[in-house]
């Protein structure tokens, strides 16, 4: 597969999740493990531009795909702008959910088929799979809105 633009070989047993493959084998510790069961979104990465929760994905299923983690998003459209606006709008506190929030935001914006900028409610709806226990939700929505308009 390719990860953040580089070809990589990830040789793992079939039960290893993509998240563990990225973190433990490739040393990409940006994606986080908050629940390991698809409920928090902290492990969100992009697979060929689509957001997935990597804890529920088996690494072997992603053979030949293009994976982008937070470490590589700066080169994507909106990636660097989101990173900048998350800082400016205080879209995080502890920062543990942040990689997932940013990757998810990129994926969410790409999913839209309308050219009109998303409303705040649409952003909220589209981001509701990414939990933030610090409660930085307002800042996250501010940041995404800023980038999307």
């Amino acid at each position: 597969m390719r990860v953040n633009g580089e070809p990589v070989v990830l040789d793992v047993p079939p039960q290893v999740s993509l998240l563990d493959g990225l973190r433990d084998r490739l040393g990409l510790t940006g994606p986080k493990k908050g629940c390991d069961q698809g409920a928090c979104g902290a492990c969100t990465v992009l697979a060929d531009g689509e957001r997935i929760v990597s804890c529920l994905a088996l690494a072997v299923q992603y053979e030949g795909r293009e994976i982008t983690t937070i470490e590589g998003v700066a080169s994507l459209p909106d990636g660097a702008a989101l990173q900048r606006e998350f800082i400016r709008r205080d879209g995080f506190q502890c920062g543990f959910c942040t990689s997932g929030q940013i990757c998810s935001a990129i994926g969410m914006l790409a999913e839209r088929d309308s050219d009109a900028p998303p409303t705040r409610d649409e952003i909220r709806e589209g981001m509701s799979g990414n939990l933030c226990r610090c409660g930085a939700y307002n800042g996250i929505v501010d940041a995404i809105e800023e980038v999307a308009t």
Partner: protein
Amino acid sequence: MTAIGQAFDRVDGAIKTTGAAKFSADQTYPGLAHAALTHASTARGRITEIDTTDATRVPGVLAVITHHNAPKMKMPSVGLMPPVFGTTVVCLNTDEVHWDGQPVAVVVAETQEAARAAAARVRVSCSPLPSAVDFSTAEAKPQKNSMLQAGSARKGDALAALESAPVAVDREFTTPPHNHNAIEPHTTTAVWDGDRLTVHEPTQNIGGVRRTLSAAFGVPIDKIRVVSEHVGGGFGGKGLVWPGTILAVLAARVTGRPVRLVLTREGVYRTVGGRTPSVQRVAIGADREGRMTSLVHTSVTRVGRTGGGPEGVTIQSSHLYDARNILLRQNIAEVDLLANTFMRAPGEAIGTFALESTVDELAHELHMDPIDLRMRNEPTRDPIGDKPFTRRNLRAAYELGAKEFGWEQRTPQPRSMRDGQWLIGWGVATAFHPPVHLVANASLRFSTDGTALLRCGFHEMGMGAATAQAQITADALGIPFEAVRVEHGDSSLPAGPMAGGSNQTGSVAAAVHTLAPKLRRALGGEISVEALARKRKPYVEVSIGADSPLGRATGQARLMSKFLRDRRKGVRAVTGAQFCEVRVDADTGEIRVSRWVGAFDCGTVINPKTAASQLRGGIVLGIGAALSEETLVDPRTGRIMNPSLAEYHLPVHADVPEIDVHWLDEPDPTMPAGLLGVGEVGVTGAAAAVANAVFHATGKRVRDLPITLDKVV
């Protein structure tokens, strides 16, 4: 221009938005092995057999450690100070099981997958012992008064005054157990090098981890280094040392390998305590003008038989209303469950729910505006102790909040505001939290390049602590914000305070304010590159406190004298007004929080950006407590029935509206830089504001959290 008061971006912004920040589970070591826990599924009992044959056969397994082969450990002695560990049980040193979920084996393997697979194959047989796990039927005993918390307080004869009051409301409330659910699970990476130990651990109490591990493994404290640079959320759940930490260190010791133990989400629920449930009674008597003649607030909370502490549920009730007679009493029931622990605004988070709901009920009885009723009973001195408030301008907070919210547009009758299908309700409640003040060791250095370095082992779990301290230091030295660097989160730095009780910013600021004049003197009266050049040194450094047995004892003495001095000065607290709008679907009872305004009297605000985030974060937690959060404990077995983020419902993006926060920005005269900690106050009053809004929308008074839709239809 001063740095304090400016909305600087967080200093850790770049690393936290690029994935570069290394949390505890991100630390790698050559030869790192992985650990996983096996839990008991008995509330109380004795292990009769523990079969590790299958577990040992899993490829890659290095060790399966149980009470049969674990080395002996011990917990530190509990002195005058509150304990730093969560439970007195030394797991794997006993065949006794004290709660459902207690770790009974730790498996170490080459990979995480192998460790988890093997942990699931350890077979444990237990013979059960009689247990009491049902909080609703457990016997409660009065809480004793201690130096740290009063179990009861009284003024006059509140019960008699209640009897004779022209108007009275007397209500019972319940709140369920809650879990912190920091998105980062508890994680320990432990590395032994001979008898030296390095532990990467997300903690709110570096010193507590060190002390506990020192006792558990019989290693002098100065051979233990605890690193905790970034904590992925704490909320109290990382304030004490829980079994996973000790067992990871044990696993590393037994296998001679660096070991990482990341608790599963279920593992966090089963081995790290949460907020106690409560049953509360609040009764208020008043005359027809709304002047309170009697205020009664009593509570029952629980502790585990092997740990946990009282919850100060009635604390705010001794400070908020000028009632002529007051009776407060806290009771505690002991059960065979995992110890409870503190969670964001322990006591006030749930205590304000009952008190502020009852005040709203009284306003309704009196046909009086709920803010008006509160202001008629606003005290000028502390109602019970008759001490002064170090500052209190709740009146102004209410005025500000009411204006921002548009409160005067409210029609008082329940169900009187509507938008098509949606019943609209506006509710209000008072927020109250008294930040504590601890002591910090620190050092401060000024270098030839004109920069300053503050070193203090405080904790950063999202509060923006490093950013705020850089601002405070910049002003104390009269240099720009950008010229200050801050190192934190490591026991090799001068010891910081624990992060709890909203103390940290103030406690570290006090150290900075002691160090700045010292540094100025050391530089001959002025902080400048020129002054340093005259000294012919690359830098000048001053410090406060020492990491030695004597230094630690002196620190304790400093802490005690500060505590007593503070108590004499009067009552110091953040107050605030929480305004909430809910929309309730007239048919389905679906409840949406649609608007929020919080106005706080919280002293000087160091950084408006990060302070607003902290206040909002507290309010979000309060919205969760109001509407969805509940840890379900099986009353027959003591098993947590929803130990996952899929079944314990935290507020998500769609549940949280714009939260508009304001403050008065008036300094507290007794605090360094006039600041008061704001990490906890946001959650207080929030659940009551929601409940009061739901009543206003629907005419239904819900006194049992969470307010789910079945309770309003």
